[in-house]
């Protein structure tokens, strides 16, 4: 009568589909994750697209710079920002606790959340690059595509892990959204996402260099930078990003919580005050 459990692969696919369904039903998430980087791409290119930008590789058109940068920004929004926001919301709602009480292995739930964020990131990147090719003369070179794909995979894996780490550390959903935005937005400004920083002050360059966003952005841009020759793999940067990812995964695994902090139990315990005495 017992039969066997549904296959893990099937369960993961079901979880990813369900997380994607939830994603498209939260319009604000769709807007900030997919629409906003797209709007920025259009506006930035309208304003600065025709100038050229000097980076380590040499001088190249700004519109190609922006396409790669904002594609990475969309990928980071889909993984880091999205997970750091949504997982604490589900925890505060008690959804995580409910899943914890079912036979679904907890690793499958996490795989569904992370996997769906990677799918959203891929969709975001493809849309950005597509617009770049159609509207802004972005050149996609086949021999540099492997580098672009590997960089994408390493980058989204690391930022998904960091998003889960933030989700594990923050006490509540409201704190999570503040922390996620307060970390990623300033960092994006010093990481060549919104502006191509030329000759930055030392301290600003240093901040960009010690966090994993700038290496992600520059490595991905290189795959679309006409001045960089194939295969365009930046192994030291990729290793650095991966290291951050491993650190994030360690924090996420060791500090993850399935229940809202205090909240429920405090309320129950507080109710112990005698009613009739």
């Amino acid at each position, binding site marked *: 009568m017992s039969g066997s459990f549904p296959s893990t692969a099937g369960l993961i696919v079901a979880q990813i589909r369900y997380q994607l369904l939830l994603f498209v039903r939260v319009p604000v998430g769709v807007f900030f994750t997919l629409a906003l980087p797209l709007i920025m791409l259009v506006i930035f290119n309208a304003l600065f697209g025709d100038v050229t930008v000097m980076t380590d590789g040499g001088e190249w058109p700004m519109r190609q710079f922006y396409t790669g940068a904002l594609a990475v920004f969309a990928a980071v929004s889909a993984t880091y920002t999205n997970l750091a926001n949504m997982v604490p919301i589900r925890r505060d709602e008690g959804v995580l606790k409910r899943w914890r*009480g*079912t036979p679904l292995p907890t690793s499958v739930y996490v795989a569904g959340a992370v996997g769906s964020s990677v799918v959203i990131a891929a969709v975001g990147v493809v849309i950005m690059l597509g617009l770049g090719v159609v509207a802004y003369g972005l050149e996609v070179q086949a021999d540099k595509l492997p580098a672009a794909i590997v960089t994408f995979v390493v980058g989204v894996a690391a930022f998904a892990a960091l998003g889960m780490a933030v989700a594990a550390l923050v006490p509540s959903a409201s704190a999570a959204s503040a922390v996620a935005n307060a970390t990623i937005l300033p960092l994006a400004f010093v990481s060549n996402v919104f502006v191509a920083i030329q000759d930055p002050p030392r301290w600003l360059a240093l901040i960009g260099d010690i966090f994993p966003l700038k290496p992600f952005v520059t490595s991905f841009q290189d795959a679309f930078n006409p001045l960089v020759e194939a295969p365009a793999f930046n192994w030291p940067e990729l290793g650095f990003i991966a290291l951050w990812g491993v650190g994030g995964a360690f924090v996420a695994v060791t500090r993850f919580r399935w229940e809202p902090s205090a909240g429920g139990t405090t309320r129950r315990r507080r109710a112990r005050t005698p009613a009739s005495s």
Partner: protein
Amino acid sequence: MSAINVTGLRKTYGSLVAVDDLSFEVRAGEVYALLGHNGAGKSTTIEILEGHRQRTSGEVSVLGLDPGRGGRELRDRIGIVLQTSGIEPELTIREAVGLYGSCYRRTRPIDEVVAMVGLEEKVDHRIGSLSGGQRRRIDLALGIVGRPDLVFLDEPTTGFDAAARRRSWDLVRSLCADGTTVLLTTHYLDEAEQLADRVGVMVNGSMVAEGTPDELIGAAPATVVSFVLPPDSDRGALTAALPGLGPLAAGENGRVDFRSSTPTADLHAITSWALEQGIELHSLSVHRPSLEDVFLQLSTSEQTTNGEPEDIG
């Protein structure tokens, strides 16, 4: 065979003792109710049995497994209806039941589950648009979607209107007809009286009484006699005339309640006195104590002996 076996269970949070040397057994196929005030330790106990909390000490076995590390095997065979747990508000009922059902080995069809909790008309509505009572019924639905051998119901009808309560009582009864074991916590005495084969009364983390509802009521010594004296009559005269009655509880508006172990004789004395005085005793009633009377008696006497329960919040 017993579905749940608890021996010497103890759970402390720092210096606070939430569950103290608790022992009880739930037999397979029975409905067992843990009854107590908020903070009596019911929810802590049920969450330890569900595997949501680790115990401090004691022996616990659920369907023959240790819930502390029962894992997937155990969670496949139990259904949990928590007091506080959410469901993704963006999903429809059909999607939620299908999704949560998909991870069990023996899944009930969606339509069957939805019909069991009476939500057929709402099946394609988003959960976020439903009322609190309807969401509670989805909690029940998700608790039974995996055909569990044992269902935990933590205050399952809190927030229900009268009709919804009766419906979920019927659902619990139909579950037991299937042989499903049910452990429920409640502070509604009528719920325990209606549903439970056996009731355990918890006060301050300990079991103070256990038995069938009838046994618990039968163990209470006295029948309750109550009536209302007319405003102009003299309560002192009644006490003086009938010294055998002992102290009379003075209620509002002249209401008198007293416990009697010899109700026939006492009632005779009271009515004779009233006739002599030419007084009509309004709302005269003689009734067996309800589970509520028993419960209040048990919990107040226990709290008096233990002193004030500490505030742990």
